[in-house]
């Protein structure tokens, strides 16, 4: 029983971690939580669906193009929602992104809603399960785990090694100081929103064969990503990753060993318990909030 739960827990955990990374990336640099982040995932998946099913492109090309399109969507959400409200109170920004998420959900349903119960794209590799010392694993799960880890490593390097990464961190630590040293903070924000959306798009294309997408998958994933970021510690990238895997495992173990009705609610319980007893989460610093 346990090995199965662990493998599927890690796979869903990887999904939550990747969505959480995009969320934390935007939070770290702008201090705002993007409540339309789930919808960026959803549209990323639908883009890939159209590219593969209608344009007939191979999977990898579709993955690349879908990530680009998601990046553009992230830039649009910065220009349309974030930048005009940069001065407004935190609460207004929350509502703006919530409004934007409904707009994207409506668009997703309008264009891809009539196509069927849910949409999926064929996995890269033959989907039949393979056995690793008699534990069956879907190849797609391995691909997802591998890709998720690759993304996280890439991000760690991006932030610590590259110039752009350092600039992004600088603006998140102290926007005013960054202005002073000549960083065009607005552009950095645009980049951050774009990259955050791109990560969500990539996660979508990787995960769609497993999770199947509907216009409403964004909302559920957003709450799971919240649980991941809070458990890991709001604002910490490693926290988002560790938190993501932890939430994935908690869900599987809770529904496996306690009661299957808990799978749906595990994420909320995690959020409530962590926030009341240890708001800083595992890696975060409580009070470093900006909202």
């Amino acid at each position, binding site marked *: 029983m346990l090995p199965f739960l662990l493998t599927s827990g890690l796979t869903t955990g990887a999904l939550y971690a990747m969505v959480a990374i995009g969320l934390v990336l935007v939070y770290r640099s702008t201090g705002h939580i993007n409540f339309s982040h789930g919808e960026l995932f959803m549209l990323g998946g639908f883009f890939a669906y159209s590219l593969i099913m209608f344009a007939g492109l191979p999977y990898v090309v579709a993955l690349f193009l879908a990530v680009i399109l998601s990046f553009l969507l992230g830039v649009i959400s910065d220009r349309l929602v974030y930048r005009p409200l940069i001065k407004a109170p935190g609460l207004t920004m929350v509502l703006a992104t919530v409004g934007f998420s409904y707009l994207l959900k409506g668009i997703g349903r309008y264009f891809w809603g*009539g196509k069927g*119960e849910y949409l999926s794209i064929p996995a890269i590799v033959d989907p039949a399960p393979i056995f690793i010392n008699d534990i069956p694993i879907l190849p797609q799960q391995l691909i997802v785990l591998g890709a998720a880890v690759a993304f996280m490593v890439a991000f760690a390097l991006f932030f610590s090694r590259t110039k752009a990464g350092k600039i992004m961190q600088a603006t998140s630590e102290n926007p005013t100081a960054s202005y002073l040293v000549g960083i065009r903070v607005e552009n950095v924000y645009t980049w951050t929103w774009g990259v955050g959306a791109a990560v969500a798009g990539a996660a979508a294309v990787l995960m769609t064969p497993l999770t199947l997408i509907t216009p*409403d998958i964004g909302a*559920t994933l957003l709450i799971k990503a919240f649980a991941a970021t809070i458990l890991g510690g709001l604002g910490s990238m490693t926290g988002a990753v560790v938190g993501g895997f932890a939430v994935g495992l908690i869900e599987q173990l809770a529904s*496996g060993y306690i009661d*299957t009705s808990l799978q749906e609610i595990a994420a909320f319980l995690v959020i409530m318990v962590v926030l009341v007893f240890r708001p800083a989460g595992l890696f975060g610093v409580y009070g470093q909030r900006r909202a």
Partner: protein
Amino acid sequence: MKRRILDLGALALVGGLFLQGPAKAEVGVTDTEILIGALGVLTGPLYHNGKTIYDGVESVYNEVNAAGGIHGRKIRYVREDDVCKPDQAVPAAKKLIHEHKVFMIHGGGCSNASLAAMPEIVQAKIPWVITASTAPQLTDPVNPMIFTTMLAGWMETEGQLQRAIDLGAKKIAIVKQKDAWADSRYKPLLDSMKARNITPVADEELSPDPTDATAVALKLKTSGADAVIGVLFPKAATVLMRDMYKIGYRPIVVGGSAISDLKAMDQSIGIAGSLDKFEALAPTKHPDDPSVAKWKDVVKKHYPSDTFMTWHLFGVASGEFMVAALKKAGKDLTRESLAKALSDLSVESAAYPGPMTCKPDNHQCYRSMAWFSLRGGEVKQVGVTHLK
């Protein structure tokens, strides 16, 4: 200052109690048009339960209108969204009845929403033909104005249980969602199991929109069930079937009415043989069945962006039923004459494997279901059940 406000409130309370405006000739019917209202879910996660069905209904109406309408009257089908929620269904129903002033209501998707709108419709004494809601309270006890062309919830699970037993199941498990749609099936399923003194070996819950069902699959496997009755939506069923196959557990699985698009399911699982022992019931024939090809083109013509699905067939059958009833009600169409026509009517529809027959004492006008399974990559109808 506060006393002044209370006085004003009291004065207005007395002054405001006037009676309503005078009643008109038959509402919603003119010489050239019949105004029919569709109350149901057009947006939100369960929109297929409404929007897609009404695309089917309206395709039938458009065809009839194109052919000159019924007794010279064309049907106008106006839709109001209830987002599958009671707090939206009541205003939607009131708007149809009091603002649009429709002649009758032809629709009803989610059970809770329809149940919430029911008192409003009953009070207005207007005919209501239900397309998809399966809550038994809608037609039991019989209301002279309310009919349904959809299986009742208990009929489905009765059929599923019977099918599982016919297929030789000894230990039966249940996997269900926790929402109104599933609840109106799950509770009667427990009763019919008790009636046959069968106790479920496992009773697990799955969210309507899961990303993973490994835990549920494992619990079913450890329970040793050789048959699983699924009270699930297609996405949950697909994820469950994949994860059961993944852990090497292959029981008989009998799915409910929402899971009849087996080809799409097989495609998204993508693992050959994963659906071999899976059977699903549907009140309709399969969308690819040659006998419904005509309606596939008709729906394509009116709704090009829709992919033809079983939900469309719910609408087509109910649409044809409605057209037959309107024809039977004759030229001087009134709500009473339509109700009388509906109360004794039998209609065959290409979309349904069995007839729709209403009796004065039984407005549950449809009681048949077809069984589908994947045989050699093609969806085959493997059986039909007619309940009394």
